[in-house]
Every structure is written in structure tokens, then in C-alpha cells.
């Protein structure tokens, strides 16, 4: 079965992209695949702005602020009321950073001419998720995406992986920055002291790299692999923290040989001689090449771009491209674009709240204003930017998002948007521009019979075909 050019353009703009803008379907014309492939050419866009600082600057400031608070607490010069105030200071420091970063990201998603690339970038941020419900993360999540994810989305998976796992935000989010080899110099020296607390590994990052970032659960690793891999990456840390974690440039990645578990180690039946920092890099490189990783990444991509339960043939093709190209991401994306199943049926994916908000903003050509105002809908609809709440990232199936309360909130927001802007918008003309032939007769009729221009916009935005991509 082959779909009409018009339907293919709608799939390209709405499923692969972030939602059609007026005129987009016409511009895409009859070469939907070509329009997508063209977006993969040239270096990825970078988000810049005077208020968007490098993560090390922000983190160094935040660590210093916390150090001062801790010091004053310890010295007893801080009464409890003041301590509360100081804690708030930390919050007051991180919150504006989050608002600037999230708003800039939202503006890019709404304004970009390369929405397929932007969807892919956000896919990878979600794959390597850090969540802002942990201390410091509101100040780091945006910079993490700008520094570790975006520069690598058109490169090799192995480089993306290393950039993500060695970024201070990740090392902090999954606790590796304070993980200590039990036989490291530091632990040996420290444990001789009387009443010294125990120093050792924290296996959080090692487990999630295996489970969530590379092989996938059931990808062939054991508890012993998790524990040993955690030892491999002991010493991957951040400068400028307190005590034994102080040395190194504040807020930047630092390898601490004194905390590294010495010796050769075996992960997934491969023996890695001890080369300090290089030992972890070697394991990551092998993980990036592992067949389970290819299959896991391909499954997630196909789930995102084809259907909640993606067809095995499509997954195998994308995984094959991943393996054959040694993780060359543009090759993987092009294979995805060529995959027949991605074009076989429209509207198989229920939009996430973020998808929905992007598509409304793009469809109605709404500006993203400065300040925290534009972030409101993400909170109300249940998908605050960079807050998936767990390292697994946001889920990607309809059932995770189509609860009755979630649907009602989406409709209420559509209604509010319609009430606010409807008088300026001709929903009847807009419908075919955004949805092409996916616009149903029922919606067309409902929109044309609406009692007001405002209600017409509400009905268009709440229509079943606008809820899906």
C-alpha cells in the first residue's frame, strides 16, 4: 500500500517532526523522505544565549554555595532559621538557570527548520535521562543536553555514550562521582583510621549504563558485571567537591587515580587491563558495539517513530544498520526514514504532552516568550521539561499518557488556548494545512459548525487526529 504524497508529508511533519506549521506540508511536497534526510546534513544547531552558561561554571558556583552553607552549619554560626534561608539560596540559584535553559529549548523546538533532528536530539536526552528532581539537576540538565547530547547526535553512538557518561551531570545524577574502589589508595589509607566510615563503590551508574543506555535489561549482563563495571569507573568524578573530592577544576570531569579500583577486571567475559580512566572508556566502547545495544537502541527508535509495539522486521533492519555502520547515527536515522513500516499507517502514536504542546505552538505559530510563563503547559499537562523522575526517561507508549485525567487536561488546555487566540485564527483553513488528508470529515464538520472561532480552534486541537502523530 502506498499513501498519497499529501499523507506522507503529514507523516514527515507530524510523526518525524514536531508538528506542521502552516505552509509546511506544501513545502515538503512530494519528497517527504528527502525533506527528512536534508535535516541530517550540516552540523547540529547549538543553543546559545547570554544566560546559558557552561555546566562547569554553574556547577562550580553551586558547589561553592553549598560548601559555604555546610561550613557555617558545622561551625555553629548558623541558626536553624538561617539554615533554611541558605538552603533557599541554593534553590534561588538553580531555578533561574532551569527556566532560561528550558525556555530556550522550547523556543528551538517551536522555531526550528529541522524538527526531525530536534526530535532525535530530545530522544537522546531522554535516553540518557537526568531528572531535575535531584539536587543541582535543574541547573545542569539543560547544559548537559547542550554539551553532551546535541554536539553528538549526528556522530557515532560511542562518542555520544562517552560524552553522556562522563558529563558531570550524569556522574552526579547517578552518584558515580563519589564512588570509591574498595582497594583504592584512598580507601586503604582511610580505613586504617579509627572509626572511619566505610568507603566503597556505588553501582548506580554502572547498572543504568548497562540496563538503560546500552545493552538493555535482558541484554546479557549479570550482577557480577554490574559490580565489576562499577569498579571500572571508580575515579570518574567531578572537581571542586568537598573533602577527598575537592581537587581538580571545579565543576569539571576529573579522573581521580587515588579512588580508582586497581587491577585488571572482567566485564561481559572480556578482560580489561588496568589503564585508569582508559579502562572505563574501553568498556564503554565495547558496549557501544555490542549486538544487544544495537537491538535495544533500534527497538527504542522504532517504538518512537513507528508504533508502540514496533514490527520486528523494522527493528532488525535498523539494528542491522547500527551494527554495519559501527553506530554511525546518521546512517541509522536514514535507515529509519527508509523503513516502509514507518510510512504504512498514519497516526499510530499518541502524542506525549510535550509533542502536543510543540505541535500546538507550531501549528498556531505562537511565539515562545521569555520567562517561566511558556513552561506552564508542560507542568499542567504532566511533562515538565527534564523531569522524567527516573533515569529510565519518559515512557513512550500510549497507555503511559492517555489516562482520562491526562486527556481532560489536554482538552482543557486546548480550550484555554482556543479562548485566548481563537478570534485571530481560521481553524477551518488551518485544519488541512496541519493535518493534510488525516483531517477527518467529522472534524471538518465539527470545526465548521462551531459556535465561535474560539470553539472551532478548541475542536481542531482536541480532535482525535491532532492528539496523535
Amino acid at each position, binding site marked *: 500500500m502506498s499513501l498519497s504524497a499529501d499523507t506522507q508529508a503529514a507523516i514527515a511533519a507530524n510523526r518525524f517532526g514536531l508538528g506542521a506549521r502552516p505552509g509546511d506540508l506544501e513545502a515538503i511536497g512530494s519528497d517527504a523522505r528527502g525533506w527528512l534526510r536534508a535535516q541530517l546534513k550540516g552540523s547540529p544547531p547549538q543553543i546559545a544565549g547570554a544566560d546559558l552558561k557552561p555546566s562547569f561554571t554553574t556547577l562550580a558556583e553551586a558547589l561553592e554555595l553549598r560548601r559555604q552553607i555546610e561550613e557555617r552549619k558545622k561551625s555553629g554560626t548558623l541558626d536553624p532559621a538561617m539554615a533554611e534561608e541558605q538552603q533557599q539560596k541554593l534553590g534561588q540559584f538553580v531555578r533561574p538557570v532551569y527556566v532560561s535553559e528550558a525556555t530556550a529549548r522550547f523556543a528551538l523546538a517551536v522555531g526550528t527548520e529541522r524538527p526531525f533532528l530536534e526530535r532525535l536530539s530530545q530522544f537522546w536526552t531522554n535516553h540518557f535521562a537526568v531528572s531535575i528532581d535531584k539536587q543541582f539537576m535543574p541547573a545542569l540538565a539543560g547544559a548537559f543536553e547542550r554539551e553532551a547530547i546535541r554536539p553528538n547526535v549526528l556522530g557515532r553512538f560511542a562518542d555520544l555514550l562517552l560524552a553522556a557518561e562522563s558529563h558531570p551531570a550524569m556522574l552526579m545524577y547517578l*552518584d558515580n562521582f*563519589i564512588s570509591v574502589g574498595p582497594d583504592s589508595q584512598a580507601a586503604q589509607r582511610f580505613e586504617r583510621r579509627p572509626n572511619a566510615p566505610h568507603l566503597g563503590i*556505588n553501582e*548506580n551508574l554502572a547498572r543504568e549504563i548497562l540496563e538503560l543506555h546500552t545493552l538493555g*535489561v535482558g541484554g546479557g549482563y549479570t550482577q557480577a558485571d554490574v559490580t565489576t563495571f562499577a569498579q571500572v569507573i571508580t575515579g570518574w568524578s567531578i572537581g571542586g567537591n568537598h573533602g577527598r573530592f575537592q581537587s581538580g577544576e571545579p565543576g569539571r570531569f576529573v579522573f581521580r587515580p587515588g579512588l580508582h579500583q586497581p587491577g585488571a577486571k572482567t566485564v561481559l567475559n572480556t578482560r580489561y587491563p588496568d589503564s585508569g580512566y582508559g579502562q572505563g572508556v574501553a568498556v564503554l566502547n565495547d558496549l557501544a558495539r555490542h549486538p544487544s545495544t544495537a537491538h535495544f537502541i533500534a527497538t527504542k527508535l522504532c517504538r518512537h517513530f513507528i508504533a508502540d509495539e514496533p514490527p520486528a522486521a523494522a527493528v532488525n533492519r535498523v539494528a542491522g544498520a547500527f551494527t554495519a555502520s559501527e553506530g554511525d547515527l546518521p546512517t541509522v536515522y536514514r535507515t529509519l526514514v527508509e523503513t516502509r513500516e514507518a510510512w504504512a499507517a498514519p497516526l499510530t502514536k499518541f502524542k506525549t504532552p510535550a509533542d502536543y504542546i510543540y505541535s500546538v505552538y507550531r501549528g498556531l505559530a505562537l511565539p515562545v516568550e521569555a520567562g517561566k510563563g511558556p513552561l506552564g503547559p508542560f507542568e*499542567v499537562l504532566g511533562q515538565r521539561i527534564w523531569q522524567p523522575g527516573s533515569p529510565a526517561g519518559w515512557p513512550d507508549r500510549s497507555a503511559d499518557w*492517555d*489516562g*482520562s485525567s491526562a486527556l481532560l487536561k489536554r482538552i482543557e488546555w486546548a480550550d484555554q488556548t482556543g479562548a485566548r487566540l481563537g478570534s485571530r485564527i481560521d481553524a477551518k483553513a488551518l485544519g488541512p494545512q496541519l493535518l493534510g488528508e488525516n483531517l477527518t470529515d467529522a472534524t471538518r464538520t465539527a470545526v465548521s459548525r462551531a459556535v465561535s472561532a474560539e470553539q472551532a480552534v478548541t475542536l481542531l486541537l482536541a480532535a482525535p487526529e491532532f492528539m496523535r502523530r
Partner: protein
Amino acid sequence: MASLKRRQFLKLGALAAGGAFLTTRLAFAGNGGPPTRFVLVILRGALDGLAAVPPYADPDYAALRREVALHEPGANGGVLPLNGFFGLHPSFGFLGQAYANRELVVFQAVASPYRERSHFDGQDVLENGSLRPHALQSGWLNRALAHLPGAPAREPGVALGQNVPLVMRGPAEVSSWSPSKMTALDEDTLARLTDLYAHDPLLSVRLADATAADALVAGDSQMTMAAAPAQGAAAYAARYAQLVKAAAGFLRQENGPRVAVFDTTGWDTHANEGGAEGQLAGRLKALDGGLAMLKQELGPVWSQTAVLMVTEFGRTAAVNGTRGTDHGTGTAAFLCGGAVAGGRVIADWPGLSARALYQGRDLNPTLDLRAVFKGILSEHMGVPERALDAEVFPDSGAVRALRGLTHA
């Protein structure tokens, strides 16, 4: 005003009888069916059961827990007394009182059938009710709803939150509800949307469920809809209080849902977990405070209610190198409520010696959580056992229901 009369009657009954036992039976008799309520609270992120219910008298406990070990009752920062061997974390003020009032059963060394250490697969097994992750796309609580005795209710269950967690997904129609700051749709727009969704099997059902839930809420002026603050520990407690109030608001309705589910997060304590005070202590305190609020908000309905708190798995028996704990196996669970035959710890204690630990690192589970689920569903909610063994928990014939957990 039938409901008011019934509630007054129950209150008097409870006072006169001095306990929940008689109350529940009277309620049965008065209503022609069990008006019992069940609340499931999922603690996502793997609760450290050895911190929540410390076996302070176990000879290996203190050495494993080092600086975060809790002390015996009466000591500074000591645990709350249970049975001389286990204690409750000092943050559990309300639960400690509930135990003394025989309204709390504490389970220790429990686990779902899942034996790996992925949060996400662990939660999937906990919720889907089968032996394997992703083996079923529906949840055991939803499948049980179809077997509740009496006339089928339109909305037998409600999930507090925007979306429905797996445990409540499935063929039975359930609603989700969360507070909204936005203005409600006008009736005309709602009617037009209902028409527009008529041929969409998913959205038509969801929209109907949403409006039904809103109608229930509109009928209860006590349900608070204030927005929670956005940041920090206060926000965590406030969001949680909001869920609890909403759950109570639904459950105390005469014709409302009998089953409610919600979840809480923040239990994944890999680093700086704390002891009597600290990170975990704060979360436990919020959980405890939420239960106290639930009891208060439910009023007389509390006497017909059982609240079960479970998590996907436990954490390592030993504290790790960063004063936290990593993913483990056996953990604790709590059953609380006016309908609960409490004041007991149920634990076939395996011990914490190196040889007793599961794979040399975790508390060895000795009780399958499905036995607890089955006991509550059959005796408290009236779900037939043959449905439990086959449909609700497939391949669970060998797991016998734990009896006598509630007064029903």
C-alpha cells in the same frame, strides 16, 4: 441522606463495640454487600525495608548498616517498638500508633516473584501480577475489579494522577483524576467533543471516564483542589497530601470507587540515605503523615478500609561505599487501616548472616507478595479465589492467600 445516616450509624457502632470488627459486619448487613475499600500505594524506586523496619536485634544488622544502623527502642534516635526484634523507623509516628491500636500489619522479607534488579522490570512484575516483566499488558488490580461482588459499578477504581499505572490498567473501566487549575469546559463544547470522539474507541472511553470522575468530585465539596507548591521538600509533601485527599474524597463517596491507587517516588537511596534523620527519614515521614491524613479524611470509612504499601524490591543488606544502598531483593510492606487485623509483624525471618543473604548481598525474601494481595482481595474485597489463582495472578496456584489480614 442515606449516606449520612449510615455514617452516623457506623460511628456509633464503632464507639459502642470498641473496635472495627463489629463495625464491618454491621456495615455488611446494612448495605447488602461489603462496602470495604482498598487503597494500594506503590513506593517507586525500591524502599529500603531494612531501614523502614529495622531488625535491630539481629546479630548481623549493626555491622551491615554501619553508620546508618538504627538503635533499639528508647535509645537516642531509636526505633519505635514492634515485637522486640523488629522496630519501626522513628519517622513512622502515625504507623507506630496504628500498630499499638492494632490497625497495622508489618511484613518483612517479602518480594514479588521478580529476582533481578531493574526498577522498571521490577515494577512491571509487581503490577502485572505475572511471573515475568512485560508478560501482560494489564494489571492485577484491574483484573480483580471485574470480580468484585455485587452489581458492577461504572467506575470501580480510580488512579490518582493524570495517568493510570499498569496495576490498574486493563479491561475494567477505571478513571484517573488529578487536580486542575484550569477552568472546566462548557457543556456545549464537551457535548461536541463527545460526538467527535464517538468513533474513537480509546478517546471516547477516556473522556467519559474523566467526566464521570469530575462529577464525583463536584459532589464532594471537601475535596481540595489547591495547587501544590512547585519546589522542594514542601512541594513533595504537598503533592502527596493532595493525592491522599483526592483518594479519600473518592473513597468516601457512597457510589464512588472502592479501590484507589496512587504512587510515591524518591525511594532510590543510592547515596547519603541517612539514618534516624536525613534523606530517607524525610520521605518516610511524609508517607506516615499522608496516612494519618488519609485516616482523618476518610472519617468513618476508615473502619472499612485497608491500605497496602508495597515497593518493587529492597536494597542491599550492607550499606554501600557512599552511605547509601544499592538495588536488592527482599523488603518490607505495610497494611494499615481500620479493617486490618493488626498489631502484628508477619515475617519468616531468614537472618542477615553472610550465608543467609540472597546471592550474598540482599535480604532473602521468604514471603511472596502475591500471598498478601490474594489475602486482601479474597477476604477484604470478596474476589473469588479461583479468579485469583488463574486470571488475576496467572500461574499462582501454589501461592496460597495469606488469611486473616482483615476483619471481614
